[in-house]
C-alpha cells in the first residue's frame, strides 16, 4: 500500500468475460479501472459487448469468468443505471416514476417526495411532476430517467447510450446539461455511446472497444477541464481529439475484418 494522489478506485474489472448458454461470446476478457470522479466513455461498433459490460458491472448479469469489484461506497443505492430507452412506467406520473427507487427501498413517503422534488429540479422537470411519460418529448423522458437515477443520491452512474435515440440537436443540449450536472454533483460516470463527438465532449477518458473479439483495444485521455463549454465543439482541439478517436475506431473495425 503506497500513498498516492490518485482518487480511490470505484470500479475494478479484472478479466471479466461473458459467454451465453447458447455459446454466443458476448464479451472477451476485459480489464477496466475506473476512479472516483472520472467520466469514462466506452465507444465501439454495435454488438461489441459494451452493454454487456455495463450489465455485468451493475450486477444484472453474472460474468462467466473474472472479477468485478465495486468500491464499498458504490454498492446498491449509490449505483444507478440509465438505460438506452427512458424505461418509465407509462401508467405512472413522473413523480411516481422518479420516486420508484425510494418506494422500493421503503423510504417514508414525505422524505421520498422531498428527494423526488430535488431530483426533478436537477433535471429542470419540476413543472412536470404530475405529467405522464407519453405527454413528454423523448428528451424530457430521458431527463426524467436521469432524475430517477439520481434520486437515491447515487454517486456512480452507468449509462447505456442514454441519448442515442434522440436527434442530434436534443442530444447536444442534453450532453451539455449532463456534463454540467455530473461535474456539479461530482458523479463518477461510465458512459456507453456510438458517437465520437459525444465521447470527446463529455469524457475525461475514452475507451475504444472492438467487436469480435469484444474487448478494449485502445484508450485516450482528454486532459481538459470539465464541464466543457458548448463552444468547445468548435475548437481545433475538439476536432483533433475527434480525428484521433475516429482513427482508433477505424483501427478497431479493421481488426474486426481480418
Amino acid at each position, binding site marked *: 500500500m503506497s500513498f498516492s494522489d490518485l482518487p480511490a478506485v470505484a470500479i475494478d474489472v479484472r478479466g471479466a468475460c461473458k459467454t451465453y448458454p447458447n455459446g454466443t461470446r458476448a464479451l472477451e476478457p476485459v480489464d477496466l479501472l475506473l476512479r472516483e470522479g472520472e467520466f469514462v466513455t466506452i465507444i465501439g461498433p454495435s454488438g461489441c459487448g459494451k452493454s454487456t459490460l455495463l450489465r455485468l458491472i451493475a450486477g444484472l448479469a453474472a460474468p462467466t469468468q473474472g472479477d468485478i469489484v465495486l468500491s464499498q461506497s458504490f454498492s446498491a443505492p449509490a449505483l444507478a*443505471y440509465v438505460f438506452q430507452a427512458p424505461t418509465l*412506467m407509462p401508467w405512472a406520473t413522473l413523480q411516481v416514476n422518479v420516486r*420508484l427507487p425510494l418506494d*422500493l427501498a421503503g423510504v417514508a413517503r414525505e422524505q421520498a417526495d422531498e428527494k423526488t422534488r430535488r431530483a426533478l429540479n436537477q433535471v429542470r422537470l419540476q413543472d412536470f411532476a404530475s405529467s*405522464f411519460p*407519453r405527454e413528454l418529448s423523448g428528451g424530457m423522458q430521458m431527463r426524467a430517467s436521469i432524475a430517477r437515477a439520481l434520486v437515491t443520491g447515487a454517486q456512480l452512474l452507468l449509462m447505456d447510450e442514454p441519448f442515442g435515440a434522440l436527434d442530434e440537436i436534443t442530444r447536444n443540449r442534453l450532453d451539455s446539461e449532463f456534463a454540467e450536472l455530473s461535474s456539479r454533483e461530482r458523479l463518477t460516470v461510465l458512459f456507453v455511446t456510438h458517437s465520437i463527438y459525444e465521447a470527446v465532449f463529455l469524457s475525461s477518458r475514452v475507451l475504444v472497444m472492438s467487436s469480435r473479439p469484444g474487448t478494449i483495444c485502445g484508450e485516450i485521455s482528454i486532459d481538459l477541464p470539465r464541464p466543457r463549454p458548448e463552444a468547445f465543439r468548435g475548437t481545433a482541439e475538439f476536432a483533433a481529439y475527434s480525428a484521433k478517436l475516429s482513427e482508433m475506431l477505424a483501427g478497431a473495425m479493421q481488426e474486426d475484418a481480418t
Partner: protein
Amino acid sequence: MSDWKWTKIAAPLLVGIVFLVLWHVLVVVNDIPPYIVPGPLLVLHTLVQDWQTLVASLLVTLQVTASALLLAVILGTLLSVLFVQSRLLESALLPYAVVLQVTPLVAIAPLIIIWVNEPFEALVICATVASIFPVIANTTVGLRSVDTGLIDLFRLYKASRTQILWRLRIPSAAPFFFAGLRVATALALIGAVVAEFVAGTGGTRSGLAYQILQAGLQLKIPRLFAALFLITATGIVLFLIVSAFTRLALRHWHESELPHEP
C-alpha cells in the same frame, strides 16, 4: 372531427331504423301471422305489457351473469398470478383450463345441474366455466408482457417478488385483463342463458331463457321476441359498462384509450 363523431352515431342508428321499417313492411305486406314473425310494433307492445314478468326474469339472469363474472374474474386472476409465479404450475394446470374451454357448455351443463342441488349455484357455475378462460389467458399474457428494461430496473433496486407483482406486473397486465374482461362478460351472459335453457323449467327462479322456452311452447312468439330483445339489450349494456371501466382505468396512459385524430 365533430362531423365524424355524429356520423359514428348516426350511421348504425340509420341501419337499425331501416331494418325495423323493412321488418314492419315485410310483415304487413305479406300478412305474416304473429305466431310466425311478429312485427316490431307488436314486440314493443308485448315488451310493455309483460314488462313486470320479463324484468323479474331479467334480474334473475343478470344475477347469474354478474355472480359468474365476478367469480371468473377472481378465480381467473388468481390462477394467472399463480401461473406467472411458477412455470411448473402453469404447465400442470393450463391444459385443464383449455379442456374446460373447448368442452361445449351444453354438454357439461346437465351434469353440473345434476350434481349441484341449488339451481342458482348450478347456473352460476356453468356461466363461470363459460367465461373464465379469456380472463386466465389474457391476464397471464399480460402479467408476462412486462418491459424487460423495467424488470432490469426493479432488479437493480432489489425489488421483491411482491413489489414486482404489484408495481410492475399488475399495471402492465391491465390492458390485457380488460380486453379479456370484455370477452368474458359476453360469455358469462351467454353461459347463463345456455345453462338456463339446459336447466329447463325446473327450479323456482326463472330467468329470461325460461321465458323464451315457455313462450316457445305456448306459441307466444311476440313474448319470445321481447325476451330475446331484452337479452341482447342486456349484453350491449354490460359491454358498455365494461368499456367505461376500461376507459376509466387506462385513459391516462394506454394507446387503446388515448384520444386520436381520425
